[in-house]
Every structure is written in C-alpha cells, then in structure tokens.
C-alpha cells in the first residue's frame, strides 16, 4: 500500500543577519497510513522546523524551503497554491503545539476556537459546530464539556488546555496529526494522560501520528518507528525495537546511554555526550556529529554518509563505521 506521506530531500533554511541557518538538510523518509512515527532529537536539530515545513507554516522571509518534495496523499504540498494548502491545514493535516497556554488565543472562548475549524472546513453552521465541539471536548476527556464550551483558555488547567488543543486538531478528522512536543510543558502525571489519550484516539480513528520529542523515554512505548535527527539530518531510522535493541549510530547510543534506567544499579553514572551541537550557520562538511563522536575518523570529517540500510528491514543509519562499531560488540 502506498505510504500516506513521502518526503524527499526536504531542505529548509533561514536567512539571518549573521548568516544562513541550515535548519533542515535534505531529509527523506516515508510515513504510512495509521503509523505512529516518533521524531527524536535535541533542541535545534530541525525536528520542529521540518514539521512546520510540511505544513508550510514557515515564515517566508527570513525562511525558505529551498528544495525537496512533500508528497501527501498524491500531491506535492510544496507546490500547492496558498488557497490549496489552506484547505490541507486543519483538515488533512493538523498540528498540536508545545505550549497550550500560548497556543490558544486568550481573548476567545475555547469552544469558539474549536468551532472555527469546523465551520471553515466542514461547512457547519454555528449550532452544528457547537454540538460537534462539545462532543469532541467530551472525547478528549474534558469533564462537563457543555459548560466548558464558553470558558476562556486561562480558566483551564495545563492538561485540559492541551486536551482542548487535541480536540481542535482532531475536529476535522485529519489523516495526519503532528504533535510537536505536546507534553514537554506539562507535569509528568499529565504527560502520561495525554500520551494515553493520543494513543487511544489513534486506535479509534486510525489516523497517522507524528510525535516530535527530545525525550526518548516517551517514544519507547508508543510509536511504531523512530527517526533520529541531528543538526538537520536524519542519522538513524527504524522500528522502535530495532533502534533500542540494536542501536547503530553513535549519537543514538549516546542518547540511550544518557537515559537513567530502573534496571540498572543505582549509583551508575549517566553517560553524557561531550561537546555542543554544531553551529547551523557554519555547518562543517561531512558528518555533523563529527566533533563529539567517539568513533570518528578522517573520512567522517570530509564526507557525509547517506542513509544506508542496516541489518534489519527498514532500519537505516548514516554512518561510515557502523559495521565496525557493531563488531566491537557495543550495545
């Protein structure tokens, strides 16, 4: 079956006074119907920017989607007109953002903001939209949905706001839900609730989900596949189990090694990756992870390796030395 979305060589840059920031450097991957994809990486690696690029929400000066294709349901989103892409936004692809307090307009009621999408995309009138909105609020687990319709964002708690955002995103039954760090700003207990909510909704509605986060712990239990991003490129990609059990890229190893684990003996030191991410304006040629990599050699500084298929099906990695590293028996 054809994938829902196929991204080829997406490249996004920002032109600033200090230089051109290469935020996303030619990434390619596919997303299937009903798949939950985790996009993992540290701050500044381009995961959010690439999602915004898909929705064409990048501010055009100073930003620029300079190359690539985003084939969604048979159409290249990057080539659509302004009017066409607007009908995709909210209706076929919906997005949930990180900070629900600032992502909701403080001067309008929550109910109004959710109804807006329904009125726009589903041609409902106000009454129908209100009914549907209350159903949605109920669906995402907001108690007393009927009276909550007329509440303002500041009257909701953090977790409830995020639920409302999810309701807004799901209102037009999109094929893809992009969630950009939706739980980062929330308490840990609320995090779990939201994650369970999304998993439940995904099973019920059958949509695809892209879950963007820097937290490897979260994705382990919820996604099917993972893209690991670093400095604008995807450096490893594969099924969840393969990534965790047969890690190939040194960066991913570093990420996993830095996670505290219940199974390990207490007192064991957490491994951290020395150094800092590269300057996206002065990206060095070759592998972006070069400066911090324990396994680097001269070739890594000069040439960038493309994603190459690893031992398992669907598991790929962008590293020159992955076979040798595997042989060294690290895991």
């Amino acid at each position, binding site marked *: 079956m054809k994938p829902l979305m196929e991204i080829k060589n997406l490249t996004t840059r920002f032109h600033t*006074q200090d230089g051109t920031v290469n935020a996303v450097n030619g990434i390619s991957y596919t997303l299937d119907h009903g798949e939950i994809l985790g996009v993992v990486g540290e701050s500044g690696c381009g995961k959010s920017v690439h999602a915004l690029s898909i929705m064409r929400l990048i501010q055009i000066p100073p930003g620029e989607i300079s190359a690539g294709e985003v084939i969604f349901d048979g159409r290249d989103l990057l080539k659509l007109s302004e009017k066409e892409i607007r009908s995709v936004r909210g209706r076929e692809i919906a997005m949930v953002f990180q900070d629900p307090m600032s992502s909701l307009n403080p001067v309008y009621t929550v109910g109004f903001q959710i109804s807006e999408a329904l009125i726009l995309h589903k041609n409902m009138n106000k009454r129908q939209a209100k009914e549907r909105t209350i159903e949605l609020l109920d669906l995402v687990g907001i108690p007393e949905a009927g009276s909550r319709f007329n509440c303002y964002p500041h009257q909701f708690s953090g977790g409830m706001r995020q639920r409302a955002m999810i309701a807004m995103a799901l209102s037009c039954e999109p094929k893809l839900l992009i969630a950009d760090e939706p739980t980062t700003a929330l308490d840990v207990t609320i995090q779990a609730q939201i994650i369970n909510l999304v998993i439940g909704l995904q099973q019920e509605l059958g949509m695809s989900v892209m879950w963007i986060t820097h937290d490897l712990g979260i994705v382990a239990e919820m996604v099917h596949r993972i893209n690991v991003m670093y400095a604008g490129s995807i450096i490893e990609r594969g099924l969840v189990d393969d990534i965790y059990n047969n890690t190939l890229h040194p960066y991913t190893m570093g990420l996993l090694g830095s996670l505290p684990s219940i199974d390990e003996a207490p007192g064991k030191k957490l*491994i951290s990756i020395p*150094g*800092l991410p*590269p*300057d996206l304006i002065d990206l*060095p040629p070759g592998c972006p992870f070069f*400066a911090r990599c324990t396994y*680097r050699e001269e070739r890594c500084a000069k040439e960038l390796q493309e994603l190459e298929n690893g031992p398992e099906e669907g598991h790929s990695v962008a590293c020159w030395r992955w076979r040798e590293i595997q042989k060294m028996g*690290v895991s």
Partner: protein
Amino acid sequence: MTEKTPVLDDLTDFAVREHRSLWLDAWRRLISNRTAMIGLIVVAIFVLSAVSAHFFWKYDAKMDLDYGAKLVAPVLRVSEESPEIHIFGTDKLGRDIFRRVVHGGWNSLRVGLVAVTISLTIGGILGLLAGFFESTDLNRLEQSLLMAGIGLSLGALPAWIARQPIQSLLFALLGVASVSTPAFLENKSRLRRLVFGIIGLLIGALSGIFVGPMVALVCGVLGLGIGLLLAKPVGGKVFSNIVMRIMDIILSFPSYLLAIAIVAFLGPGLEKGMIAIGVVGIPIYARLARSAVLSVTQKEYVLAAQSVGEGHGRILFKHIVPNILSPIIVQATMGLANAILSAAALGFLGLGAIPPEPEWGAMLGDSYKYLSSGAWWAVLFPGLAIMFSVLGFNLLGDGLRDALDPKMRV
C-alpha cells in the same frame, strides 16, 4: 563503549561562536539601519551648525536691524536692488533669516538638552526608586526613613496649625519608633494601633494646648489619626503609590497647557521655557523607569543577587540601572525632539525666547501675519528648520529602539 578518544590535531570546536557584547551588537544594527543613519547625519548637521554658529559666527540680536531691507525675498546673488545676499530672505525688521535660523538652532538645542536632562534626572530617579521599592522588601534603614518621612509630612499639618514645628519632628520620631517597636508589641496589631494612636493624640493635644483649647482639640484629633496610620510600618508599595499618584496628577494636564501655565507663572524667557518643558516631561520618564524596573526585578538575576545578600545600592547600580538604560535612551532621543517642538510652540505663542533673540517658533509667530502679503520665505524656512531637526532626532530615536530591542536578537 570505549573510553579512548582518538586525538586529531586541528580539532576546532565548531560549536563555539564568537562572544559578542550587547552594545557592539546594537551599534552594528544601528549602522546598518538606513533611516537611523539619515537621522544621525541630520542630527550631526544640526548640532554642528548650531554649535559652530554660536562660537564662531557672532550675532548680536539687538543690533540686527535693517529697515531698508524689510521683507526681501530670497536673494542668491548680489545685484543692484539688493546689495547683500539673503539665502532665506529677510523678515519684517530686515534681518537675514538664514543667520537667524542658524542661531536659532543653538537656542533650540539648548532648550532640548536642558529640558530632557531635567525630565530624565528627576523622573528617572523617581521612577527607579518607585519601581525598585515596589518590588523589593525594604531594609531597616529604608523603612525608618520612609516612616520618618511620612510622619514628618503628615505631622506638618498640626504643626502648621499650632505654629509648632516641633510637632512635625515628634511625629517623624513616632514613625521611626514604629519600625523599631519593642518585641512585646510585635504581633498584637490592635494593641499597637491603640498605643500609637494614643501617643499621637497626646503629642497633638499637649502641644496644642499652649495655643488654645480648640487648637488642642483639632491637633489632638489629627494626632490620633496620624498615630493610627503610623502604627504599622508600610511597605515600599506605599512609596511607589504616592509617587505615581503625583505623576498621575501632573499627567492629567495636557502637556502644552501645563507648559504654558508654568511659563506664565515663571515669566518669559528661554530658560523658564526649559524648566517648564522639563517639568512637564517628568512623569513620562518616571513611568518608563518604573515599568522598566518592574520588568527587570522579576528576572532571576536580581532575585539571585538578593538571595546572596547584595545590598540595595549595589543591586540598583550593578543590575538594574544598566538594564533599564535602553528604553530611557530611546525616550530621551524622542524627548529631545519633542522638547524642540514644544519650545517652538511656546515661542510661537510668544512665551519663549524674549525678542529679539532668534528662536524658530518666535520667528514663525512674528511672520505669519505677513503671509497674505506674500512673504512665504519668512514662514517656510524657520518651519523647515524645526521639522528637519525634530525629524532627525525622531529617526535616530527610532533606529536606536530597533537596535537596542533585545527581541530582535536572533
């Protein structure tokens, strides 16, 4: 994982970027802003011409009269009818307008600088203190000072009524006493109020009795009230509220009217105009400083400094003042522009420079009656002078705002 790291010689840490100082960044941004540069050039021309005219091109306004050359249109070349060059023409008294415009610049510059300095210093300090004490706890000394001040000023009323300045002092002491109360009164606020009220009553009544029974009554009642108010030491918010209320009162008068009123009170003359414009501007800087201070004191570095135990003075000068400079500098530049405009307005109404001192607004005020007879030059050039100098400062101020605004930092 192995611990060994292969050593490679020219390993540069790509992540280290050059450290940039805030001011250098701002300066660079300013330079690259075209309109700001135009403003800077205009300001430079204005300042240079005014200064050099004042020091090098002597002009005695009282001696400058030439009835023979009244209201002559601009003359660029010497000819039979007009033996002298008048680039901007002459005015109703035959004076060369160009010369008066250039010298008028010096007056405008002076007015602007003095007025802004007055507004900035007084308003800035008031706003700084108001904002700071509103958000910080006062230490003992400050509290004592504040309570003493309140006691002194409130006590001035009964003191004046009974002609006994000592009452004022006594209430000031009562205020200090409220800060250093004996321990047994610490938590019993009702008892405190009672005690202080009675003491206040006694101060008023006993002093007033020397003058007369009614005076004793009135002063006693006042003293009671003051004592009750002084019972509990107030926080810095009271100080801030008082200051900002006074600023509000000044602000409820439209600025032009207030300036006119002050000048009418002080008398004509450029110096009085400077003071008037300066006073009118005080609340603007006070409000600005206060809101800037409030936004800074909420930042963590101030809280950190306080928790380490840095004194108020140090916190003020090391942390707060440097961070509120930006909006104040921007406001001062635009304030200069406004001051020049206000001075011209006052001059136009006849309230500014005393004739025959050259001042742009006064020149306009003199000459606009002659517009109907066609003397457009007497009106055009002084006005253009006002406009360009004000525009220059506004452009510069605008550019400064863009350059200093931290939100623009990528």
